[in-house]
């Protein structure tokens, strides 16, 4: 029960894995492994909205989680939704094992701009840290520079830094120190 698993849901740009592995290994003192990619569950597609339900994706990840998984982070390139909200950058089980991040709205192309890898990398790292932070019990932070601050549009993602603030970082350290055995 101590491995952080990363898994592609559908196809994900290859270079994203390097960014994600490097950021997660910097912040989380856990062995990090990649699972073989899985296809997007058919039940997730919402034809009315042309988007995918994050709850279905998370269910699928939970059902297929390896026994030694501390956390499972799904990465997808499709656009996520929940019934109440028009879109999501990602979602996590609060203080639970499953999280999912969508790269769809992190691409410059989504906003009609030319692709820019460095921007995609920054945004991906921020959102991965954000959703994994929730799985370790961090709530939204009032420091707009912190990865845990709530981003309701891409401008707010760009305003964040690729790191946790001191307070959230300390909370993570305490979490690992106190629950090392039972993450």
């Amino acid at each position: 029960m101590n491995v952080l698993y990363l898994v592609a849901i559908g196809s994900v740009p290859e270079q994203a894995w390097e960014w994600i592995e490097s950021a997660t290994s910097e912040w989380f003192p856990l062995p990090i492994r990649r699972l073989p990619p899985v296809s997007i569950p058919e039940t997730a597609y919402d034809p009315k909205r042309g988007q995918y339900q994050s709850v279905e994706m998370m269910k699928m990840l939970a059902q297929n989680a390896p026994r030694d998984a501390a956390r499972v982070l799904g990465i997808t390139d499709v656009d996520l939704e929940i019934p109440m909200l028009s879109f999501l950058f990602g979602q996590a089980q609060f203080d639970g094992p499953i999280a999912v991040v969508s790269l769809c709205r992190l691409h410059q192309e989504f906003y009609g701009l030319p692709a820019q890898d460095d921007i995609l990398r920054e945004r991906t790292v921020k959102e991965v840290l954000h959703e994994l932070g929730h799985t370790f019990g961090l709530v939204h932070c009032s420091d707009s520079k912190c990865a845990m601050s709530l981003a309701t549009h891409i401008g707010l993602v760009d305003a964040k830094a690729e790191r946790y603030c001191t307070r959230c970082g300390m909370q993570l350290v305490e979490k690992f120190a106190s629950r090392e055995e039972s993450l």
Partner: protein
Amino acid sequence: MKKNWPILVVDDEEVMCESMGAWLREDGYHVDTAPNGQNALALAKAMDYAICFVDLKMPGGMDGIETMMEIHHIRPEASIIIITAYATVDTAIQAMKEGAQEYIVKPCNPQEISMLVSRILKLKKLQSENAILRKKLTRQYRHHDIITKNPRMQEILALTQDIASLRSTVLIRGESGTGKELVARAVHFSGNRAEKPFIVVSCAALTETLLESELFGYEKGAFTGATAQTKGKFELAHGGTIFLDEIGDISPKLQADLLRVLQERRFYRIGGNQEVEVDVRIIAATNKNLVEEVQQGRFREDLYYRLNVIEIRLPPLRDRREDIPLLAEHFVHHISSELGKDMTGISGSALKLLIAYDWPGNVRELENVIERAIVTCRNGMLDEQDFSWLQTNTASAQNWEVPDVPLDDLERRAIVAALERKHGNVKEASAALGIDRSTLYDKLKRYEIVH
């Protein structure tokens, strides 16, 4: 902090409850979910939710509007947000009519809902702060916080309780510093108007025209500088009490205007042609002998009788000397903790001195004297020598040779001298003279002293 504001999500679709709950939990809220109206009510009985998201359309049993009405019945303070998949004006209007605070169409933008939640909670925080402050204020001015063992004062306190919930006008008479405003507050905060405003107007501090616009407000363009419609103190006090201090000082024109408000509870804003109706209790106070003012023709008799429905006469401190030790102890304790000075009390000989003094400025003067003594005191106990200046003043006052001039001139000189000593500071000068600020302003006006 956010955990103090629990949220309930009511929706028959499990995925909706689950995803909305998860999203709000990430923001730090405690979130419960219910799949139908019945479950929602059971939860609402057990938990004081700040916000309830309720889906408008729920099949079988209670629909969203019914659920909302029932929750509203159990938790009237909870803000209810109706969620619907289709925007129809009719249902929105119905929901708002039945008490929903907001109405949102799903799916909505994350920013929209995040702002909505924080806006509602900001309001709730203000409301709860307001309730706490009101409670504090009410406690502060309840009758038993007026310190006395004097039988006459105790009768007055009993009277304030008896008249607290009436609307009758009260006239409080008493020398400066006897606590007229404190008694007025005790009346207001003990009655059924306690939750409503208590507005103080010092009639002596303002000129006739200023006082008129203060009291009645004005319309835009009523005079130069009236750039917007402004409510007067009578309107601001609606539902509550207006305390008109130094009522004996108002001009004949304002006396007439005030009489009309007292008779009809309605008036015109300056420059306005629409009557404004108010429900206001009036408590007036004066240190003048209004009967004499009426006899001299300076105060309208009809207004006097309108104001004097219930009369309270506060005795000067020299007539309730038994309260001096109690008040002195109270002020030592209160002022020392405010100034952050560690004081153990006041010595017997010092108290003797205070009891013997005549206190022309009454309780306010006593408070000022104690404050001055605490500030200059070098050890933790106020002793006779800490009040030596008071003794000297008393002695010098007794031996003072009074110049042969009219009384008015004497008063004028005393005021000018006090202002000079205090470098023009009216607050300090009025404290030194043992009168309140509004009385000093009145006298400055009367003697045409420019400061």
